[in-house]
């Protein structure tokens, strides 16, 4: 199993992202670098959280990097000269988790959700997972005062597992519009009992 680290980088977010991606690409590296604009990663800094909510430029961003490429990313950051960037912290990720809930009334999207949970990669565990598929032929058509859906897939739960698998599942599930996923919470090695 690959090991990943979380790097908290200080600096204007778009510049930091662009610089690191450009640096890694220029080196011809296959480093896995995932920033928190691609998947929601839980931010513990309240100021940054507010800025994120307001779509303002943040000065702190989170990146998940495979441990083997961490040195390369560090080098990229320290070599940035026009705009100062800095690695505030670097922690090894033990696993990750996120909560989800969904209410889908469209068969195509329902199938996407059902299949996503069916073919879970090894290592992912679902906690308190609940998935209900209901068909009610009497609800076919439109209603004005007593809305009901002919087909529904509803449920909720928590997905837990290795960060790379969790990120895959997160992207898969959030491609379905009617599924709501909370930001991914990272659990670090040093936090483990």
């Amino acid at each position, binding site marked *: 199993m690959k090991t990943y680290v979380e790097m908290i980088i200080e600096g204007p977010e778009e510049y930091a992202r662009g610089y690191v991606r450009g640096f890694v690409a220029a080196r011809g590296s296959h480093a896995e670098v995932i920033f928190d604009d691609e998947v929601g990663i839980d931010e513990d800094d309240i100021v940054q959280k507010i800025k994120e909510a307001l779509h303002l430029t943040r000065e702190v961003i989170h990146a998940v990097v495979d441990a083997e490429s961490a040195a390369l990313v560090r080098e990229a950051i320290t070599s940035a000269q026009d705009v100062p960037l800095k690695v505030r912290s670097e922690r090894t990720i033990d696993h990750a988790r996120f909560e989800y809930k969904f*209410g*889908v*009334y*469209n068969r*195509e*999207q329902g199938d996407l959700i059902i299949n996503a949970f069916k073919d879970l990669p090894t290592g992912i565990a679902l906690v308190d997972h609940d998935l209900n598929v209901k068909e*009610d032929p*009497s*609800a*076919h*058509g*439109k*209603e*004005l*005062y*007593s*809305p*009901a*859906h*002919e*087909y529904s897939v509803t449920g909720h739960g928590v997905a837990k597992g290795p960060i790379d698998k969790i990120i895959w599942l997160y992207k898969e599930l959030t491609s379905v*519009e*009617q599924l*709501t996923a909370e930001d991914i919470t990272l659990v670090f090695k040093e936090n483990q009992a």
Partner: protein
Amino acid sequence: MFVVSAAWAQAPAVPETQTPSEAPATDVVAAPDAPAPVAEEAPAVEEPAVAAEAESAEHAAAEEHGEEHGGGHHGGVPGKDLPLWTALPFAGILLSIALFPLLAPTFWHHHFGKVSAFWALVFIIPYVVKFHGAAVYDIMHIYLIDYIPFIILLWGLFTAAGGLVVRGKLRGSPGVNLILLLIGTLMASWVGTTGASMVMIRPVLRANAWRKNKTHVIVFFIFLVSNIGGALTPLGDPPLFLGFIHGVKFFWTMNLIVPMSFVVALLLAIFYALDTFYYRKETPPKEDGAKEPLRVDGLHNLLFFAGIVGGVLFSGMVKLGSFTLAGVHMEVQNLVRDGVIIGMGVLSLVTTKKKLRADNEFTWFPILEVAYLFAGIFATIVPALAILKAGTEGAAAPLINAVNKPWQFFWVTGALSSFLDNAPTYLTFFTTAIGKLYPAGIEEKVAATYLMGHLSEAQIAQGITDGFKYLLAISAGAVFMGANTYIGNAPNFMVKSIAEEAGVKMPSFFGYMFKYSIPILVVTFIITTFVFFV
């Protein structure tokens, strides 16, 4: 089918204290807080004062012949004798409609008819036991004068709209979305908010299928097409049709064109800005090959809409005489109107290909919902209307005394229309305004004339209140603010449900209110209040 002049309904006891339209219209005094009469605001549809006086005279003559009139206060239970709790079943059914879809949707979907019947019987049985013939008269009156025409109109509009299918696929850019919303808004006053929503929602969904951020498009669709667009004619929104049945002229609602245009312009400007913001964040689809020009199938149904408009207009302009049915005064031209509407609906059914209705996912379920639920609403509203009509002599005097100015009517009607169905809410405040501004017992049609602002100089000099701004405020509040929540107007839920089935993530009940209606609509209505109703 009906027995004309049923004996039991002809002789309900009218207590001595009741003073129906025997009180001459000229005895009316201005309410203390009423605005100064503004003669020029009254649109010159016809010689209003003459018309009102003629109606009064006709009414008095009819009374001499022992006939009952449409106002509904002659044979019924006097409102001033009714305690407030008799309106509890009315509150019960409105709250059931508001809360069950949110709290127990599956139960509600399968049992709403029984719940409606329950509330109706909870009211009707003790009411008839206590008041006998007068109670039966009240119930017959509201069914014959209000409920049946109401259902026939909605059935006709729904049937004709179900034959119109908009095909094709545009690309949901801010400009295209703005035009689609504008078309739906303009259509709503003529085919009804339900019809316009039914016809326009699928083209809007198809145009925006590729977009990730589209929830706001559907929310603005609910604001504009499912609600505000229906303000201009009695066909647009059920509350206005109830106003028409109760004496408001067909084209009077056109007076709402200025406040409606103001609200629509503000909302479309906000929509365009918001949609442009989200549109810039979208990744355009790889190819635009799926674009297909819009076309409308079943266009001949527009003729049937025209026929329905004609039927309704006819009933407002022509008098063909009257007769008494089960003790209730019936106007022949209204029966002709209902016959024309039924005819238009039948023609639409016969001449429209079944495939078009299938493509629209047309079923009779929505009309059955309206029929079952409004059977309960119209039965249980009887005591509420009677109490309100009794004005300050009735048990609702505190409410009547508390609501004084047009802007207060706008907000009270609107606030209640946000959470309760707007048709009965309109009727409630229409009656409240009559109870407040004019003496108890005034002929409803005469009061409606005054509410429309149709006053002669002599009547103004006599101090009769010009109710124009009041009726404008009540109409605008009922129609506009039905958009404030999902439960404010029937098409709101229908649009939400269709959008969800198309894969759009719609906000929750409170999400809709806190993210959209409070910051956008309520703020718009506050501005509207200062511009039009203060």
